[in-house]
């Protein structure tokens, strides 16, 4: 069964841009050929690291969101480990988290709808509240720090 993973890795800051792009591209094609789907590729650009890693004080972050089987992720991790470009990587399985969030959101929406029903006097104010509920817990993206 395929699971959703998030792979965040740090690339050396002095690596040329094209090389990084090529490397990421390579990872993607490898994943696709093994049967995984790449849902999202995000490059955060250069960020200061919180501590020194291999004598580097900064690094560029790349985030991949993949739907894959465990063996594919194992292969991906092996590739990241072998690569000279990558300083550090972190794999997080997020499908269960996403499911949980979805459930929570549904409950929230239901409760909001109920509240709207119970108080029809203040009807014009309610739709906006319901809208807020659906909009607020969005998909977690990049850190807001920039």
């Amino acid at each position, binding site marked *: 069964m395929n699971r959703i993973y998030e792979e965040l890795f740090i690339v050396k800051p002095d690596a040329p841009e094209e090389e990084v792009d090529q490397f990421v591209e390579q990872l993607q094609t490898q994943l696709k050929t093994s049967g995984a789907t790449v849902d999202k590729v995000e490059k955060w650009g250069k960020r200061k690291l*919180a*501590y020194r890693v291999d004598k580097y004080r900064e690094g560029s972050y790349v985030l991949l969101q993949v739907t894959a089987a465990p063996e594919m992720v194992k292969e991906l991790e092996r590739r990241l480990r072998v690569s000279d470009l990558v300083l550090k990587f972190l794999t997080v399985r997020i499908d269960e988290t996403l499911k949980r969030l979805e459930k*929570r959101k549904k409950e929230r929406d239901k409760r909001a709808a109920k509240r709207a029903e119970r108080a029809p006097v203040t009807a014009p104010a309610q739709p906006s509240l319901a809208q807020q509920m659906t909009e*607020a*817990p969005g998909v*977690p*993206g990049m*850190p807001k720090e920039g």
Partner: protein
Amino acid sequence: MAETRGGRPVSASQRPTGGDKAVATQKKQYFRRKKVCRFCVEKIDDINYKDVKMLHAFVAERGKIVPRRISGVCAPHQRRLMDAIKKARNIALLPFAASY
């Protein structure tokens, strides 16, 4: 006290939410502001390790996780927060130990 243990919590003040310090004790008459869990109040379901700005608020100057007796975060959220902070540390988004 003894009769309520094990059963359902009778009143809100008995629920182990933590930070119910607003209840003034009979002897000492000082008053502390009631702490509330930020995640419950703002209805943040997702405590994500990538949200560095948010996590920074729950990390002390030296990089330690702020205990919930100080921050007022409820237990379930503190647990998720801890997970997020530890993940963020692992990928160098947050320090293990910050230097001055």
